[in-house]
């Protein structure tokens, strides 16, 4: 199988000239994207005093591990928030893939009589929202999820945007003929979905899986609203709390008693950058993980066999 694929790829290869040009374009853009992040890494390893006097430098005059020492002072709290983030991301991605793939499949089927209704039902939610307070009341007073890990998972579980993307993947990559042939073989809707449709839409599922993984990983807002227990605060939320507190202190710097007591206790630039690095590095590996499924997009012929 892999042998055959390699051969196919050779077959429609770019000419060397174009290949170099394409590599150059992609390489330059990728560099532009990576560079700021590298800079963040460098700042996190810069000596605080050097940073204050020289500003941001690509090669600082003095390196330091102090920022990481500061961040790891919190010890178990940091590890715990890693744990929370990983748990929420893993469970959340699975839950939302189940919800989304089912919903999207139903509204992708032309034979579904309520197809238009449920499509509009989903799209409408992208455009209108009731705001923070009513949502808070639903989550805390109706669902009773305050201080529960589920308050970090459920509010992000379904997303009309992802549903519409996945619906399109189903429609474009699963020919009607396959579903019909499944029906003729006597398979039920659910069996067709699991055995025929899902394998054919792996790139689509991987895309949505990737998006929701990133969505869960980066989410800090739900924790701000629903989590009081310091042991359940995810990583990004810890980072955002520090950033918004810094801004608050800056905006209220005229309040003398406040600024006097607090400016000292805020982490310094380098420590914040170290937090960014710690919060980002693990998730970078999520992309290659999902990428595997992009290339595995099978051809129609190979399923039919």
């Amino acid at each position, binding site marked *: 199988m892999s042998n055959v694929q390699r051969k196919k790829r050779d077959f429609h290869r770019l000419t060397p000239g174009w290949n170099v040009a394409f590599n150059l374009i992609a390489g330059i853009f990728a560099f532009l994207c990576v560079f700021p992040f590298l800079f963040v890494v460098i700042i996190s390893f810069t000596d605080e*005093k050097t940073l204050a006097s020289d500003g941001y430098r690509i090669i600082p005059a003095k390196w330091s591990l102090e920022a990481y020492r500061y961040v790891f002072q919190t010890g178990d709290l940091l590890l715990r928030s890693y744990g929370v983030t990983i748990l929420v991301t893993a469970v959340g991605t699975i839950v939302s893939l189940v919800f989304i793939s089912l919903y999207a499949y139903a509204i992708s089927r032309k034979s579904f009589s309520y197809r238009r209704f449920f499509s509009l039902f989903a799209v409408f939610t992208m455009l209108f929202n009731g705001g923070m307070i009513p949502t808070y009341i639903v989550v805390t007073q109706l669902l009773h999820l305050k201080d529960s890990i589920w308050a970090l998972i459920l509010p992000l579980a379904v997303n009309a945007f992802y549903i519409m993307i996945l619906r399109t993947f189903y429609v474009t990559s699963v020919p009607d003929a396959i579903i019909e042939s499944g029906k003729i073989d006597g398979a*039920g809707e659910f069996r067709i979905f699991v055995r025929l449709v899902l394998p054919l839409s792996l790139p689509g599922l991987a895309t949505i899986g990737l998006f929701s993984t990133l969505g869960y990983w980066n989410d800090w807002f739900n924790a701000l609203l629903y989590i009081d227990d310091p042991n359940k605060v995810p990583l990004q939320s810890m980072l955002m709390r520090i950033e918004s*507190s810094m801004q608050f202190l800056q905006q209220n710097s005229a309040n003398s008693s406040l600024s006097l007591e607090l400016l000292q206790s805020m982490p310094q630039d380098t420590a914040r950058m170290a937090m960014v690095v710690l919060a980002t590095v693990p998730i970078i590996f999520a992309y290659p993980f999902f990428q595997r499924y992009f290339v595995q997009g099978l051809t129609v012929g190979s399923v039919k066999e």
Partner: protein
Amino acid sequence: MSKAKKKAGFALASVTALSLVLSACGGSGNSNEAAGSGDNSDKPVNLIWYTIGTPQKDVNKVMEEVSKYTKEKINATVTMKMIDWGDYSQKMQVLVSSGEPMDIIFTSAGGFDYVQNARKGAFLQIDDLLDKYGQGIKNAIDPSFLSGSKVDGHNYGIPANKELPQQWVWRFNKNVADKYNLDTSSVRSLESLEPLLKTVKENDPTITPFVMTKDFVPYVPYDYLITNMPLAVKLDSTDYKVIDILETDEMKQALKTMHKYYTAGYIAPEAATTGSTTDLERAGKWLLDMAQTQPLADNLWSASYGYPVVSTPASDPIITNTSVQGSIMAISANSEHPEKAMEFLNLLNTDPVLRNMVDSGIEGTHYEKIGDNRMKNLPESKNYDMPSYSLGNNMILYLNENDPDDKWEQFKKFNASGIPSPILGFNFDSTKVASEMAAVQNVKEQFWSSLMTGTVDPDTYLPKAIKQFKEAGLDKVIAEAQSQLDAWVAANKK
């Protein structure tokens, strides 16, 4: 086979569907239990106290100790919930709106705004409670605090007893000032700074002579109706006239001077967008800035920067609404136990044992006493590091190791020296002109920082700004403010 699979599939889909419904019903069993216990006088009531600050690890541990003490004194226990600085306003808005149970709420001009939320009904009006259970407070704290924090004639919270007036000072980096033999004690006005700035600029171009953030506003002898909005009343005003601050001669003069300083390079080129100057302060590369002071501030500044800082007054100490409303504890409108909450606030503001426990934690664990009213933090205090200003009467706090004996005497003297602003106690209600206010705010944000930091030339920009303010409806806002102020003067002055 196929049928069984089909059934399994059906079941799976149903289960996922049900999971939502179930989780909806799951927790509902235990919510009604706590409600009925309010009036039973034997059972201690539990007070829920929301306050600002980075959540501390040992809060619950300390509150257990606090509860033991308060249970004995007033038959109440205390639960404290801390919300981080930057999240406080937003989260409290949501919590209060959704009717979350709470009894005591920290509020201030900057965090969950006191006046606004008092008017919106978030806090209980406490005039009667204060008379009945708050006599201790009335004796313990400066009366200006209570009179100055009235909203539409009523009290909605207990201000923390601390520095009362606000006074601006010029702060100097003493190392730099000494190096060039600058006389820092004789300056006062904005104009008087020029020779100092010039000397430093000419001798050391790596130093920023005049440091400021984008929130800088040159001092003029007016009091603002709303912080940093152009509506203001002159401090020595007798006719209580509300005016656009940008049209006053004092402000015009100040802006001209600022622009002169900016073009001369005394001010950092990006001052109008600078949020923080801590990097300059850490590096010590600055000569002077403007700040609000309080007694012993120079010592605190010097200690926190690690080099000597000295200051010279730039204004008189003025008691304003903002200075009075810097830190207030209110009782929530939905409190189940308002009387107990008031009793607790009374105790907190008068009883040094309770107040210091809330502030510094458990004696022997977080701090130890090293004198009659003097204490020293222990290493564990890193797990209970609280902002003193937000937790009630500061003047009954134990002194720190290095504090002078007369620390609180100095505060009392400073407070006594405060001159009340003519509009102390008047709070503008902008509800009627809300849409004009939104537009005016946007114009303000557009012009304010670049004018105030001297980045732009006031000769061309000031007329533009004034015109846009008028178009946004500033005149209507001023007229509304004036009529409210006139009514207030008629009722309160004479």
